[in-house]
């Protein structure tokens, strides 16, 4: 077994960052916790930097329980960056709060959990990573310690616990059926001849956990409630970080561990994708609260993302497509949340006249929401395009049609937010509500990223290309 502690340098950095952030915070006066923020940001950045040397590796470490490949590399780059953006969004909202430090610590841990989730190539590690990324979520959801926050935490926790049981049961079953080995490589070999009925139950069990992570049907119930109840930065994290980890984990699981000829998981995933996107889009209609609207939109987006998982291993572009879409989605979604954090309102109508008050914010909103629709030339468009292509290539043309129709439907509710934001204020011109700088910076930054996404997708895709070629 290859003991290369440095192979997991980014993960270790994250963990160390979490610990040191906590310690730093412990010795800081309440008003000067920004130091802790710096530490956390530094840790995230360090993790990203530590990844760069490892770009292009294709190996597994710790007795095949952890994979180092394109997927993990992308996760190690994307997830900490997303965490960085979340910290940026949070900067304005939680500054000076007496639990500010804890917020950053939990963020770091959630990021770590997501990365492990994405990298795990061992059912046991998957289960542990699942725990590691679930626990901070509940903590963050209830971080505000208000009534709604408590409810949010409760729902995250309960749904997560049930899904966790499913995951554990499934893991046990698959491990045993796979000849007692829990790492994917040997698992695939072992499952080849296993009784498919049992395998089906096991797969669904494991899938239950992952679906909860990524907030896809049927694991989606917590998403809207939690996002609405939790604080906005927490919401941003809940809808971004775990999805990144979970989707990559699902991709790895299906691409490596579960042979499609034992159980027809592509069909299952395709159906789940269709149901998820449809439910998310329809449920987003007529939401008055922008947070819920965004939450449901993330559900719908996961539906599209699952298309790439459904063709894992059957379309050679499935992984690049998934990564491109993930990157675009993360940036765009965080941008939308950043706008929300920069100017939080409880109803869509309160955004009337935003274009007058804060043109840059309005521009960001336009870019991000149209981006979520998939209007070119935004990042999500590049993602959608690649994912649709991959899905069609993988023989799921019907799913692509469903997704296209859904896209049209989604346009409708995004416009419900855009139209008031762009129209002139009805009454007397309202004074600009105070708006923290951090989120605004993040917003504009993400907007730029999202807009240049189609072009910006180039380096990432190129990276994936080369890593795949090695």
């Amino acid at each position, binding site marked *: 077994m290859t003991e290369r502690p440095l192979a997991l340098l980014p993960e270790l950095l994250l963990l160390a960052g979490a610990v040191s952030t906590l310690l730093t915070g412990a010795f800081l006066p309440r008003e000067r916790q920004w130091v802790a923020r710096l530490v956390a940001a530094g840790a995230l950045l360090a993790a990203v930097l530590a990844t760069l040397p490892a770009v292009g590796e294709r190996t597994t470490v710790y007795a095949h329980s952890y994979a180092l490949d394109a997927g993990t590399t992308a996760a190690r780059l994307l997830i900490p960056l997303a965490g960085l953006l979340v910290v940026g969004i949070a900067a304005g909202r939680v500054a000076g709060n007496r639990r500010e430090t804890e917020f950053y610590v939990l963020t770091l841990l959630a990021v770590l959990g997501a990365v492990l989730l994405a990298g795990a190539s061992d059912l*046991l590690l998957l289960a542990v990573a699942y725990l590691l990324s679930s*626990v901070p979520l509940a903590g963050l959801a209830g971080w505000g310690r208000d*009534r*709604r926050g408590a409810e949010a*935490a409760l729902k995250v926790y309960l749904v997560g616990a049930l899904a966790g049981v499913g995951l*554990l049961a499934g893991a046990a*079953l698959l*491990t*045993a059926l796979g*000849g007692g080995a829990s790492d994917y490589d040997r698992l695939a070999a072992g499952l080849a001849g296993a009784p498919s009925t049992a395998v089906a139950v096991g797969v669904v069990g494991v899938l239950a956990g992952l679906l909860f992570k990524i907030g896809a049907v049927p694991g989606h119930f917590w998403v809207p409630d939690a996002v609405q109840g939790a604080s906005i930065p927490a919401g941003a994290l809940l809808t971004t970080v775990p999805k990144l980890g979970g989707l990559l984990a699902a991709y790895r699981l299906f691409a490596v561990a579960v042979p499609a000829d034992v159980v027809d998981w592509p069909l299952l995933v395709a159906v789940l994708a269709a149901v998820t996107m449809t439910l998310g889009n329809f449920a987003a209609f007529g939401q008055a609260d922008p947070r819920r609207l965004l939450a449901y939109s993330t559900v719908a987006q996961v539906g599209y993302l699952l298309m790439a998982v459904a063709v894992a291993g059957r379309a050679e572009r499935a992984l690049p497509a998934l990564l491109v879409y993930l990157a675009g989605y993360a940036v765009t979604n965080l941008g939308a949340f950043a706008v929300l954090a920069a100017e939080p309102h409880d109803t869509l109508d309160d955004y009337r006249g935003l274009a007058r008050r804060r043109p840059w914010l309005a521009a960001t909103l336009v870019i991000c929401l149209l981006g979520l629709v998939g209007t070119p030339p935004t990042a999500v468009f590049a993602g959608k395009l690649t994912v649709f292509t991959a899905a069609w290539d993988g023989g799921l043309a019907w799913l692509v049609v469903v997704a296209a129709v859904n896209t049209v439907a989604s346009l409708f509710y995004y416009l419900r937010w855009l139209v008031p934001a762009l129209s002139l204020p009805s009454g007397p011109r309202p004074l600009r509500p105070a708006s923290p700088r951090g989120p605004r910076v993040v917003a504009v930054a993400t907007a730029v990223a999202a807009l240049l996404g189609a072009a910006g997708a180039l380096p990432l895709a190129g990276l994936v290309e080369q890593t795949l070629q090695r």
Partner: protein
Amino acid sequence: MTLPMFLLLASALFSVGLYGALSQQAVVMVMMGLELMINGVVVAAAALWWFLAPQQPDGQVLVLVVIAAMTVEMAMGFAVVTLLFRSSDADMTDMAGELRG
């Protein structure tokens, strides 16, 4: 003493726990239900290891992981309940139905 016997036991525990999780109102009771389900999982994991692949240690480690998970879940559960109780003076899931739609 065969695998199906153990699995039947596990199924029974699991189902009873599920019933509890579905039917109980008090959060703590729901947690108990989950505990019971995990309990079933423990039995199943152990039995599967013993009867199918005793040579690989993975099964054992899995049991360990499951127990650890159970503990963690418990701790988090207590924390959440405390929070719920403190913030909105409730210990029932039904009392937390404000976020919906």
